[in-house]
């Protein structure tokens, strides 16, 4: 009789662990998906018409929370911005490039509290400006995403200074 209960309890614990791991994994995937979307919308690999540029900028803005804190030593990004301001900035920045590619690597995702994800990663931006100048920037970034109405939205970016002069 006792053995039956022990087996049942063991099974319940195993199911709980599997469920928790599965749920956490799916949250991981959802968080990563936001970065993939940001990468997709930021990409510029050919000539775009104004409508496509505006749509991409608007889609980028939709990935961000109401107030987004940028804490970086890259001058134009610092401060608190709204999604509209980010859309405008994205549109202006992308228009300076003939090609632009933003990619993310080495994700380390943590959930310090419910509805908050902290992500440490490497971000790499490559592109060619209209004046022919090449961009090739890599930075380690700490990001925070907040869950709003079941969607993970970017709410904070901090660039980690890897080499300090």
């Amino acid at each position, binding site marked *: 009789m006792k053995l039956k209960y022990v087996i049942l309890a063991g099974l319940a614990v195993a199911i709980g662990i599997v469920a928790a791991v599965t749920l956490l994994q799916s949250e991981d995937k959802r968080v990563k998906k936001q970065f993939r979307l940001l990468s997709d919308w930021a990409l510029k690999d050919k000539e775009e018409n104004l409508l496509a540029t505006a749509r991409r900028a608007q889609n980028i803005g939709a990935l961000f929370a109401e107030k987004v804190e940028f804490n970086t030593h890259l001058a134009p990004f610092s401060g608190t911005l709204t999604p509209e301001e980010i859309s405008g900035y994205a549109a202006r920045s992308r228009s300076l490039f003939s090609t632009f590619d933003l990619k993310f690597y080495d994700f380390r995702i943590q959930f310090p509290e419910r509805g908050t994800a902290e992500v440490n*990663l*490497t971000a790499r931006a490559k592109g060619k400006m209209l004046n022919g100048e090449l961009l090739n920037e*890599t930075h*380690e*970034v700490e990001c925070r995403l907040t869950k709003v109405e079941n969607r993970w939205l970017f709410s904070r970016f901090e660039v980690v200074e*890897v*080499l*300090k*002069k």
Partner: protein
Amino acid sequence: MSIKDNILRFFFPALTWKLLARVSLIALFSYLFFGYFCIPLHIEGISMEPNYHDGSFNFCWRLRYLFSTPQRHDVVAVRFAGDRVMLLKRVVAFEGEQVEFREGKLLLNGRELNEPYVRNPCDWDLSPRIVRKDSIYVIGDNRNMPIENHVFGNAPIRRIVGVPLW
């Protein structure tokens, strides 16, 4: 057995448990070796020219500092968040040492450092600074660019992943 049979047997061996075990072992070894100990590197950028060329291929040997610490003039790989993207730089100074650039010359504790690997002269000026605790000071070999465009400085020791294999 004819030569043709031997060649066929070499390229299309009989599917036996022994073969499967051998293939699995090789796959596991390759995964661990090239995934954790000897990571393939594709070098991008010109910061280590002319010693490491843009577009060249190398490996990052991660066990180099298992029982030792980086030495002056070593070329090291410095990681960002992980080891997918890394910086390749030259070690020039250690914790507590004073680093300075004066008219393109790298001064270490006030004395010019001999750097035979630097081929492109520069006119950099950088005020004296002390290398931070638990850090080393790393710089690229190619200084033929404005100082603000060159990524260099204090790298925490924990960020040193390994060295290029050649």
